[in-house]
């Protein structure tokens, strides 16, 4: 069987990214152009600005990915692009570019679910990983606990009913004056704090044990800050960051444990931007050791939004014969 080279394109939020991946596993290039410095000025991602930046960067990023891979555009077997979920303006840039490029090069073209991409980042990291396994996807926009039944086939056990975990990080970071992006900043601050200094609640969703809720936790942190301020107490940012992080990691780990116990899979993976959080990695890894389950986690560069994960997911769909039409639209609310 000859090698299949997929060009993966991702532009669902604030990273313009493209990559070339062979057979869903071997990364030849993985280019990411981040917009974080611009959005930091606004305390979060501004969709209109993000969309415009994607337009400015997309050609250069794809060109770099192809050049670094040493792959002329004609040698690509298919183009895979994120078509949802995400911000509609940014998504449209990647989808429109990918469609036009694939059409002009007369190559097959596939729309890929962004969450499926995050999960598939694990195939790149670990050559031995094959479905079935359990996966916790945690990022700025998503929190999903998923059973991976086969390549590209998923059973969603639970998802967040309000804020995504990463969103809670961003909001709490803003409230304690750490700024955007909240994930890495809270993690850094938490290193100097006592995680047991403040008791924040771990919310459960009635009747849906696998679903997540983080808005209650976020409110609890805001209430705590308000209360302390009214009482004239100095806020210990490190303690707030550490205690908040512990509550999030605790809720995610509790859910993971429940799924391992119920479904008995012997492999557990994490994925998404928040999967680079050291406290979360350590907690899930310890859980997996305790349960005798093999733990998988992508390198941080594959946790953040990237094109390689889209190419990896694209490979398995390509092999299944999946193709998208030229009328493919962006779907900001696409479900897994």
């Amino acid at each position, binding site marked *: 069987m000859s090698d299949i080279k997929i060009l993966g394109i991702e532009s669902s939020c604030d990273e313009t990214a493209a990559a070339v991946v062979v057979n869903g596993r071997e990364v030849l290039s993985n280019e990411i152009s981040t917009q974080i410095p611009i959005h930091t000025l606004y305390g979060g991602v501004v969709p209109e600005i993000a969309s415009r930046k994607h*337009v400015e960067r997309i*050609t250069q990023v794809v060109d770099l990915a192809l050049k670094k891979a040493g792959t002329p555009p004609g040698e690509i077997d298919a183009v895979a692009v994120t078509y949802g979920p995400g911000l509609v303006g940014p998504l449209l840039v990647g989808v429109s570019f990918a469609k*036009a*490029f694939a059409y002009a090069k007369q190559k097959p073209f596939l729309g890929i679910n962004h969450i499926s991409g995050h999960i598939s980042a694990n195939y790149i990291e670990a050559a031995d990983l094959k479905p079935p396994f359990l996966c916790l996807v945690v990022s700025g926009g998503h929190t999903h606990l998923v059973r991976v039944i086969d390549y590209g086939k998923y059973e969603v056990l639970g998802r967040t009913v309000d804020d995504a975990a990463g969103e809670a990080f961003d909001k709490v970071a803003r409230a304690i004056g750490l700024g955007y992006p909240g994930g890495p900043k809270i993690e850094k601050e938490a290193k100097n704090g006592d995680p047991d200094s403040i008791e924040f609640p771990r919310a459960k969703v009635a009747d849906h044990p696998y679903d997540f809720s983080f808005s209650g936790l976020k409110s609890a942190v805001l209430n705590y800050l308000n209360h302390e301020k009214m009482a004239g107490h100095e806020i210990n940012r490190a303690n707030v960051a550490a205690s908040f992080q512990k509550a999030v990691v605790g809720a995610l780990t509790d859910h993971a444990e429940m799924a391992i116990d119920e479904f008995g899979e012997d492999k557990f993976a994490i994925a998404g931007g928040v999967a680079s959080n050291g406290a979360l990695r350590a907690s899930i890894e310890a859980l997996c050791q305790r349960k005798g389950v093999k733990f998988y986690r992508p390198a941080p560069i594959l946790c953040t939004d990237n094109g390689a994960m889209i190419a990896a997911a694209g490979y398995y769909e390509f092999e299944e014969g999946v193709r998208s039409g030229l009328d493919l639209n962006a779907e900001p609310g696409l479900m897994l």
Partner: protein
Amino acid sequence: MRILGIDSSGLVASVAVTDDDVLLGEFTTDYKKTHSTTLMPMLDELIKMLGIDIKTIDAIATAEGPGSFTGLRIGAATVKGLAYALKVPVIAVPTVDAIAYNLYGSKRLICPLMDARRQQAYSGLYRFDETNEFVVKKEQEPEAIKDIIDRINIADEPVTFLGDGVPVFKDYIEKNATVDYDFAPAFCSRQRAGAVASLGKKYFDREFYTSAEEFRPVYLRKSQAEREREEKAGANA
């Protein structure tokens, strides 16, 4: 020289292919469907119908803006994907100029109006001189409809209005215009990729073109977040 023209700046989606002075084909729709679902299928239909290979395109002319932000970025990303893959230059044509170019040979003033919301239009003022040279009397910009009509009244010359702003501002024009005016007929009253390609050819002949990498849409307006941030900075200064 074979030029592919594309315009998705407004409600209209339009693609055309020209060979020098001949329009080989044009596909134009004015239908409330997002351009991301129509533009590429229309291009594919047109290329198939013409029986040509997309690789025979020498350059892509596109309406650079202003227009709907979403329409402009679908068009820009599509043009970039095509031009990068085909290794051809991009000819960026001002949207309002291309709309005016529809009325080639007219002896009247030409005033395109694109609805820009907030009682404003993206507009400009154009004419064809005695030798049919296209003259830009006033460059495209977003402007209050009142200012546009005041200027036309002062010019005191016959004028033709066209563009998707006509139905929006028709009442205002009828009440306030003191000059002889009319409205362009259906076949040339909106964006047409044939006009973009034709005007694009003139730009290309003057070596006025760019690349897939460098091309940027011309929004003529900043995002709301940028405007608010600047206003705040201005207030604090």
